[in-house]
């Protein structure tokens, strides 16, 4: 799953042991990126 | 957010008139009632859709 650091805007890969933290700037707020695949929505 | 596509009550498509209504009655200085009559939005259910709507897309669009 890919994330983006909300401060330095760089892509971040989260690993199981690293904790939630940007490896480049140490910021703890990460934003989840939208998946690249096609999303199907039912209009109901 | 954006103006609803249709009137909640009767289902008439009203969103296509909103931009003109906004330009003429809110930004401009025409009488809102006269503008709505002119646009053919005659029922009061449809008129309230236009009168009571505030466009918030521009307010939220910088955030993602």
């Amino acid at each position, binding site marked *: 799953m890919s994330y983006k650091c909300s401060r330095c805007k760089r892509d971040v890969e989260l690993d199981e042991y690293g904790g939630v933290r940007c490896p480049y700037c140490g910021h703890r707020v990460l934003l989840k990126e939208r998946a690249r695949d096609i999303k199907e929505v039912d209009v109901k | *957010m*954006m103006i609803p*596509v*249709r009137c909640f009550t*009767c*289902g008439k*498509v009203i969103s296509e008139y909103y931009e003109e209504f906004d330009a003429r009655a809110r930004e401009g200085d025409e009488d809102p009632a006269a503008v709505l009559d002119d646009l053919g939005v005659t029922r009061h259910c449809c008129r309230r859709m236009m009168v009571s709507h505030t466009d918030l*897309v521009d307010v939220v*669009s910088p955030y993602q």
Partner: protein
Amino acid sequence: MSAEFDVEFIERDDRSARFLVRGLTPAFANGIRRAMIADVPTLSIDTVRFIENSSVMFDEMIALRLGLIPLTTPLADYEIGETVTVALDVEGPATAYSGDLTTSDGLVEPADKNIPIIKLNQGQRLEFEADAVLDRGKEHAKHQGGVSVGYRHLQRVEVIGDRGEFDEEEPHILRGVIETEDGELVATDEFDNDLTNRYPGKEVSVTDVPGAFVFHVETDGSLSVEELVDRAAESIGDRAAELKDAVSV
């Protein structure tokens, strides 16, 4: 029930009409009204495949808006359940309008071209492919072709004398269409819905004309008024035939 209906148009436009039908029972008039709302099918976007949506609205919100956009429906070419592919690709800064939609069938297009779907800022993009399906208003209100479909009794107005000399002049509000003593049909908005404007100083009686109904039909643009009324009557006929078949076997 009488064998012949007598139909007279009072107002007639592309998308709205007012017409008088004589020789109807109230039950049949209501049957036609209901058929126009729930039984005449129209095309409407039903599933949306989002390829990219970086706008400020969620996919589901945009999908809901898309479903409400009326699409012109060539009823002769489609059966219920058949689909048409619709696509859109707009990049900001711009507003995505219903007119930007492209369809796989030239006869199917958005009935209104100026419906804003979503306003896009610099760098935002909306791209999707969708299936529009033909279905009935029964299934979902987005498939409803008729908007504000209704009927009223035709009212006959007769002058029965002069208003009393010391009577208070009160407004006499009526809606719909009236029939005068000479048999003329007058829409009530012609005299601002107030009978005292048309007959000042007169005492009038208002009675419902039995079996005469004034329909007001508006469509969302997916069908013409004629087609909507035609199909509604046809659907009642089809269902009656179906019942007849089922009973006679």
